[in-house]
């Protein structure tokens, strides 16, 4: 079985948020429920001030702290699904401990005050257990893997678009959106990336492009000191998270 990994080249990324938009359209997430996001950081001061940005999907960690803390095994790492970390919405009790334990802030509890008014949950009230039911939605749904529109009172997160990835022919080393035979299996954020800054492939396959990029271009994992060992690697200058400095103190 593959071990799916993502490589994000920060020297190519323009911070355009197309990935974030594609993700929310693919997965019908609510505003603020950003399974994929681009985070912007300021670092330093004039004359050496920098602006940097980091696209952030779920890191699908090799040693995921969210999985270790979940009291019901609702969140689990599925080695038969490429090592993707899923949330089983039938088992999640909404204790939110996984959100506490995830160092990357990739988990969302949609049962909260709306980020934007008017509340889309009032405009498209939920049907069939969904927290909201927009008129156009991805027909793919698998609550055991947290795919689709979530029900109330559970935690949701990026699934590496498993509903697409899982249909790829077994043994495929890389899911490249430029390959017409494979493009339908590529995660939405990777497929849509205009400067082709994102790559998706099998970390267990020695001949995969993602492995070559990580090796040749010095791929790093963010916040690596937490020991979670992400399956998402970053290339290029700026692959690091600056220390937290509050706006009011900077």
């Amino acid at each position, binding site marked *: 079985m593959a071990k799916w990994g993502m490589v994000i080249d920060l020297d190519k990324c323009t911070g355009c948020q197309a990935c974030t938009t594609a993700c929310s359209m693919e997965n019908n997430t609510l505003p603020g429920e950003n399974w994929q996001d681009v985070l912007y950081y300021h670092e330093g001061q004039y004359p050496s001030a920098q602006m940097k940005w980091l696209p952030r999907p779920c890191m699908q960690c090799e040693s995921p702290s969210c999985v270790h803390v979940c009291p*019901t095994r609702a969140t689990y790492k599925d080695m038969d699904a490429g090592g993707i970390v899923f949330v089983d919405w039938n088992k999640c009790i909404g204790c939110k401990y996984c959100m506490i334990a995830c*160092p990357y802030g990739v988990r969302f509890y949609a049962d*909260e*005050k709306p980020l934007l008014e008017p509340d889309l949950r009032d405009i498209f009230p939920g049907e069939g257990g969904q927290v909201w039911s927009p008129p156009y939605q991805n027909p793919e749904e698998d609550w055991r893997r947290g795919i689709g529109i979530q029900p109330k*009172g559970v935690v949701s997160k990026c699934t590496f678009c498993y509903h697409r990835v899982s249909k790829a022919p077994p043994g495929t080393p890389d899911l490249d959106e430029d390959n017409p035979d494979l493009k339908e299996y590529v995660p939405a954020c990777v497929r849509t990336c205009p400067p082709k800054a994102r790559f998706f492939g099998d970390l267990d396959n020695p001949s995969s492009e993602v492995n070559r990029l990580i090796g040749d271009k010095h791929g790093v994992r963010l916040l690596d000191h937490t020991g979670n060992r992400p399956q998402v690697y970053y290339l290029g200058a700026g692959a690091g998270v600056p220390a937290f400095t509050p*706006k009011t103190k900077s």
Partner: protein
Amino acid sequence: MSNEAVMQDAPRDGGVPILTLLVALIAIGVGIYASLPLLAEGHSAFNTTSNLAWGLPVVAYVFLALSSTGLAMVSSLAMVFGWKDFYPIAKRCLWLAVALLIAGFISLALELGHPFRMLWAIPLNLQVQSPLFWMGVWYLIALVFMVVKLALLQKEEWSTSASRTVGIATFVSEILAAVTLALVFGMMAMRPYWYGSFVPVYFLVTAALSGVAFATLFTFFAHGLGTSSMSPRMTHLMTETMPKIFAALLGTVLVLAVARVITGLWSNQPEIALVTRHFVDSPWFHVQLWLGMVLPFILLLSPKLRVQPIIQLLAAVLVLLGVFIGRYEYIVGGQLVPLFKGTWYPDLIAYTPSMAEWGIVLFGVGIGLLIYAIGMWMFRLDDAPADAR
């Protein structure tokens, strides 16, 4: 030891139980009213967010559950460690520990997305890696043992081998519960404000402090805020032994709390230093330090003052306020620095509990008080074995 029990002079009918019941019903009523938005909007009625996931209900749960542990410690002084001076309040403390634990469970359950699913999903999936799992296991076991122990005490079984075994089991499970509750936070290395293997020590000492404060408060309340209706033995306990233990625990907590603040301010680590500075700049911190710790400590140090019930009551109320603020600072503090959010959250996360959050806490406390009031009628909470008169 004789199994013959004596009835001491606790007023079981009349003013105090009725007042307790009244306060309980008011708390339940106001609690339900304030948490009505929860029924209409779900957890949108809370001010917690995906970035600050654990708010006031969790704070209240930790406060109440650890107070339950503290009360179990106080009652164990007599029933496990054979310090007979403590028999006169042992049963009351035990029942209060049950009531506060249930109050805490209610607060926590109403905070969950699916409280009923928890009932089957946790036992059927046995995630033994999760500290939350063990915390639930130990507190549930403790609750069962406490109820069994109380049933045995009702049958005047103060020191039969079964009663002693259940007493030891109660003590051990309450301690393990508090320790795993501490590890729920203490093991989170990604949240430096929480992290540390000595969090269990801090939780146990503060649990003992809040247990002694609750024991003081409720014993004096049950006896009309004075010692006139107490047996000589209970009077001795409540005016001599108890305030000294109260002072010693408060002094210990004061040292630990000040050490924690100084460490926090000294540190360069933003997650620790910024959060500590944020709290030190808040008036609540000073309420906690000066009113919640220093003032009661001074009051309890004075031999003339600490024998007076009114001074002890004042100290107990102030200490409980201080401990509650401390719990709030600890639990909310670990979440104030946004984790990997960039400029979307450029400052410490702002959080003020909503009315609905206060409502479910009040509802839980009201149910706890109701359970306690029922115990005042049904059980002789001042009971003690004959040789402990």
